[in-house]
């Protein structure tokens, strides 16, 4: 088989991949245009196959070589990922969840985003990844040129030239598919499909070679097992330390290698695909490693000694003249190498452009004062350039290192380098206390140990590190020897470097985190990462995305925030604040980007209105869920409780106010009524005074005339006299009433028998209309009650009631019945006549001042009598009431038998009742 044919086959295969990728890309674009998902990409099978990018040329060719040299140890490279996928799927799930939620574009972006969008961390991880990957890519170039050499035999072109062409070809392919467009999510459906196809090709090729070896060359599995048994050598013995270390290393690599992160997280279309991959990917690994040992053993048995065991997969079919199978094996190895290089360079170029080129360019432009413009062109070109540089570096490493080192060893160096990201990554996902300082310290110290103890020595003595330093350490310090740091020299160099780099890395990370304090964005991001599962599933947080956030997601969010802020702060103030913030971000209008800084400000603003916890929760709700911890909810609850308490207090106060207002209104009404009463009282007094005055004046004027008879003179003088007395009595009554009403009366408390008081009153009232004969009915036995009260005033009341009866009782034979009843400390005396009584409509009025049943003259008073009686009785702690339905006018006078003069009027009454 000629080299030309081989090159043709390789080119044809690349063209085939190109076609698949292009078709897939077209399909995906068409689906996206129709608002659908590309169904093939949404398949968990494609996702699982794309994960096989883990299996590089190193796996394809190197595993056999590894097995030939170290026996079963190669298994560890598959064991680590298998354990992670089967046992640690929850870590992968969280990684995928966070990566999608934060629109993470690479592993460097993940670390940078978690630790407060620190670009310094991005730069560190990117540098580390480029350094670690350079030999790894060189390894792929080496394996491809080796495979060409194995085919072509002696007449092959120089391997270096072959590697150069390979690197250039891969660069073109990657640029064509990896940098076609710029998407916020950095997904490349065409490439993923192509990688999946390659996964099938390399698996099929290896299985085909394995089948040929086991059933074609050997006599079935039993024969192979026997050969393995006999081929066992001393260095095939399992070393537990190495096994453990390598398994751990491979397990770490599956999550930290940039290309694995690219397919595992960035290109992931659906989190649920992980469920299938958690068993399907280990299955793939088992299948691909199934025939490794048989091929190695058969190669050792059948091929001439000195043959590079790394090329057994290719060499066995060639030696048996199976050119077709050899071609398949070549394409399988080619697939493994190209898929790794393509994905790795996409991942690395993304990191380089996002964390190195664009920030530098932006910094440069900012210094020149130009901030406007489209960055897309710049980013794409930066990536294309980065792909070229990365493959160039790989080629350079291949040249410098001479291509002598075994494939597996080079791969493991890369593994250890990328493993340095692990502490920062685990901390990012599970430790809220992890800080930027800690992450940087861990990464840098781990990377330095890796460089010094593993990477630089890998070039061989005297390339970067002199043989003397290797032997004696820097400055002759033995504990700084690269392969036995701190005097530990029992381990082999790989495990030694792995142990010390990870140990120092982790220690620096933890100490740095504990010693430093996270900034606000760091804390926000930390919460978003660590609590990824407690957040709303589809929500994309307010926090760090890639370098260019999706515009469509932001606008409604800012709008919602404005709507909410308007409700809380008031329309004008909210709009002013938002406009100012937008202007600060260099935007027109009212909608600033909801950056963490802006959200913090907004939260502060809102917190002044609704309380910190509530403001936080409200913003979190709109920006798609942040940490709503139990404490936050408790804080909201307690704030709410406080608000409710306040509002209850306010309610109580407003009720109180309403009550006061009602009382004031009533008091006001009372005052108005009193004012009206006072006016009417004055008017009535005026009337009562004017009436006798009129008579007095008129008769005085008559008397002044000399034309009157002596008889008339006497008659009129008497009228004047009577009216004067009437005036005096009126004034006396008014004064009396005033004193009684104000409770300022001086009571003259004396002991007396009730019966005697009634006697006295009956005699006194007889002077009123003495011509009328009244029959008095009384039971003097009942009246034998000793009283201790103002007996004079009480008698005055009795007289008034009896006099009224004499005046108004209209019965022909008037009868007055006096009934005394005693109930406990209280006595009531009823005065009932046999007249027509008081009309019902007047009963309520008779105790009012100036009220008269008939005309003034007949009543013989100003109409103050009963009003005075009532005032007296109230002062005596009793009352006088009209009792209807007694067959005549009936007044009941009730009072306590013993009066305590010290009590005020109202209290006396209360005691009495």
């Amino acid at each position, binding site marked *: 088989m000629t080299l030309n044919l081989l090159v043709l086959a390789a080119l044809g295969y690349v063209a085939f991949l190109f076609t698949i990728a292009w078709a897939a890309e077209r399909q995906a674009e068409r689906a996206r245009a129709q608002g659908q998902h590309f169904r093939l990409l949404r398949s968990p099978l494609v996702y699982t196959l794309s994960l096989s990018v883990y299996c590089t040329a190193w796996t394809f060719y190197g595993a056999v070589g590894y097995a030939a040299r170290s026996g079963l140890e190669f298994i560890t490279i598959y064991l680590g990922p298998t354990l992670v996928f089967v046992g640690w799927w929850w870590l992968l799930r969280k990684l995928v969840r966070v990566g999608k939620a934060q629109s993470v574009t690479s592993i460097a972006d993940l670390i940078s985003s978690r630790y407060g969008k620190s670009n310094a961390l991005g730069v560190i991880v990117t540098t580390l990844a480029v350094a670690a990957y350079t030999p790894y890519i060189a390894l792929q170039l080496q394996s491809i040129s080796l495979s060409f050499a194995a085919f072509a035999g002696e007449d092959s072109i120089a391997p270096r030239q072959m590697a150069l062409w390979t690197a250039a070809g891969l660069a073109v392919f990657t640029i064509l598919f990896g940098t076609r467009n710029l998407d916020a999510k950095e997904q490349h459906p065409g490439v993923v499909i192509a990688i999946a196809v390659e996964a099938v090709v390399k698996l099929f090729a290896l299985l085909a070679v394995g089948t040929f070896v086991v059933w074609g060359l050997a006599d079935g599995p039993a024969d192979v097992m026997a050969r393995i048994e006999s081929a066992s050598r001393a260095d095939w013995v399992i070393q537990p330390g190495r096994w453990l270390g390598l398994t751990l290393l491979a397990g770490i690599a599956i999550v930290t290698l940039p290309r694995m992160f690219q397919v595992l997280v960035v290109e992931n279309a659906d989190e649920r695909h992980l469920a299938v991959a958690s068993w399907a990917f280990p299955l793939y690994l088992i299948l691909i490693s199934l025939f490794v040992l048989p091929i190695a053993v058969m190669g050792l048995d059948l091929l001439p000694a000195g043959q590079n065991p790394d090329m057994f997969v290719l060499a066995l079919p060639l030696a048996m003249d199976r050119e077709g199978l050899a071609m398949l094996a070549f394409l399988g190895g080619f697939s493994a190498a190209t898929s790794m290089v393509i994905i790795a360079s996409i991942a690395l170029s993304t990191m380089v452009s996002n964390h190195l080129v664009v920030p530098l360019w932006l910094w440069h432009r900012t210094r020149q004062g130009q901030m406007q413009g489209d960055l897309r062109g710049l980013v794409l070109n930066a990536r294309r350039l980065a792909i070229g540089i990365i493959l160039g570096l790989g080629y350079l490493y291949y040249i410098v290192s001479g291509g002598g080192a075994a494939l597996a060893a080079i791969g493991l160096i890369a593994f250890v380098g990328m493993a340095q990201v692990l502490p920062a990554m685990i901390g990012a996902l599970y430790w809220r206390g992890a800080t930027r300082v800690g992450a940087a310290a861990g990464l840098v110290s781990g990377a330095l140990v890796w460089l010094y103890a593993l990477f630089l020595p890998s070039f061989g003595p005297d390339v970067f590190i002199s043989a003397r330093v290797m032997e004696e350490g820097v400055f002759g310090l033995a504990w700084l020897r690269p392969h036995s740091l701190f005097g530990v020299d029992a381990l082999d160099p790989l495990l030694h470097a792995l142990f010390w780099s990870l140990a120092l890395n982790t220690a620096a990370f933890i100490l740095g985190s504990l010693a430093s304090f996270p900034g606000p964005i760091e804390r926000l991001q930390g919460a978003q990462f660590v609590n990824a599962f407690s957040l709303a599933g589809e929500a994309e947080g307010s926090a760090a995305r890639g370098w260019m956030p999706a515009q469509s997601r932001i606008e409604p969010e800012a709008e919602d925030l404005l709507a909410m802020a308007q409700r809380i702060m008031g329309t004008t103030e909210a709009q002013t604040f938002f406009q100012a913030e937008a202007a600060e971000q260099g935007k027109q209008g009212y909608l600033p980007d909801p950056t963490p800084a802006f959200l913090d400000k907004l939260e502060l603003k809102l917190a002044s209105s609704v309380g910190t916890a509530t403001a936080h929760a409200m913003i979190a709700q709109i920006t798609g869920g942040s940490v709503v911890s139990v404490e936050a909810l408790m804080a909201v609850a307690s704030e709410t409780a406080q608000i409710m308490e306040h509002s209850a207090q306010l309610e109580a106060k407003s009720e109180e106010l309403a009550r006061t207002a009602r009382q004031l209104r009533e008091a006001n009404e009372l005052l108005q009524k009193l004012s009206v009463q006072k006016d009417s009282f004055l008017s009535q007094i005026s*009337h009562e005074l004017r009436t006798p005055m*009129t*008579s007095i004046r*008129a008769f005085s004027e008559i008397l002044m005339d000399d034309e009157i008879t002596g008889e008339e003179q006497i008659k009129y003088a008497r*009228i004047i006299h009577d009216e004067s007395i009437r005036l005096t009595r009126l004034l006396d009554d008014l004064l009396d009433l005033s004193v009684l009403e104000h409770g300022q009366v001086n009571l003259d408390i004396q002991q007396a028998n009730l019966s005697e008081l009634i006697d006295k009153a009956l005699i006194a009232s007889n002077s009123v209309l003495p011509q009328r004969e009244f029959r008095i009915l009384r039971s003097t036995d009942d009246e034998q009650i000793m009283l201790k009260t103002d007996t004079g005033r009480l008698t005055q009341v009795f007289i008034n009631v009896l006099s009224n009866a004499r005046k108004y009782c209209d019965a022909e034979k008037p009868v007055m019945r006096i009934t005394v009843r005693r109930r406990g400390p209280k006595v009531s005396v009823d005065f009932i006549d046999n007249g027509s009584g008081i009309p019902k409509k007047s009963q309520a009025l008779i105790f009012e001042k100036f009220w008269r049943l008939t005309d003034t*003259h007949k009543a013989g008073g100003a109409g103050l009598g009963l009003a005075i009686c009532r005032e007296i009785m109230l002062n005596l702690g009793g009352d006088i009431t009209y009792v209807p339905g007694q067959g005549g006018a009936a007044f009941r006078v009730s009072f306590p038998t013993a009066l305590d003069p010290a009590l005020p009027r109202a209290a006396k009454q209360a005691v009495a009742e």
Partner: protein
Amino acid sequence: MAQNHCVPGESTADRASMTKAGHGGGRLVLVLEDEPNISEAIRFILHRDGWTVISHAEGQDALEMIVRERPALLILDVMLPGRSGLDILEALRADPALADLPVIVLTAKGQAADRERAMRSGASLYMAKPFSNAELLAAARQLVGV
């Protein structure tokens, strides 16, 4: 009922005084007043001036009495038992036959508002108590055109 009905011819003294003063000219004056002493004072003053005086102390049947007696002048107290003086006055003014009857309203309520009410109700003249005898006499004479 406290009612003093003094018609000419009943008493020689009345006649003598009537002829002696003559200003009243025997014209009939009705006094509606519930205070007997005031009523007596007015009766004395006007009678001495030659008026024929009828006194009445009840508001209820006052209007019928006016219609029956057809006095030349009415002296009306506002505060009457049974029916308010102003009420009687309004009813009286509503009767075309009595609309022109001169009425002197007397009241113990001397405020301006009371005066206005009285004038609105159709009083010819308003006098507050206590009054001067001479003024009352002059007013009575003037109203009947003596």
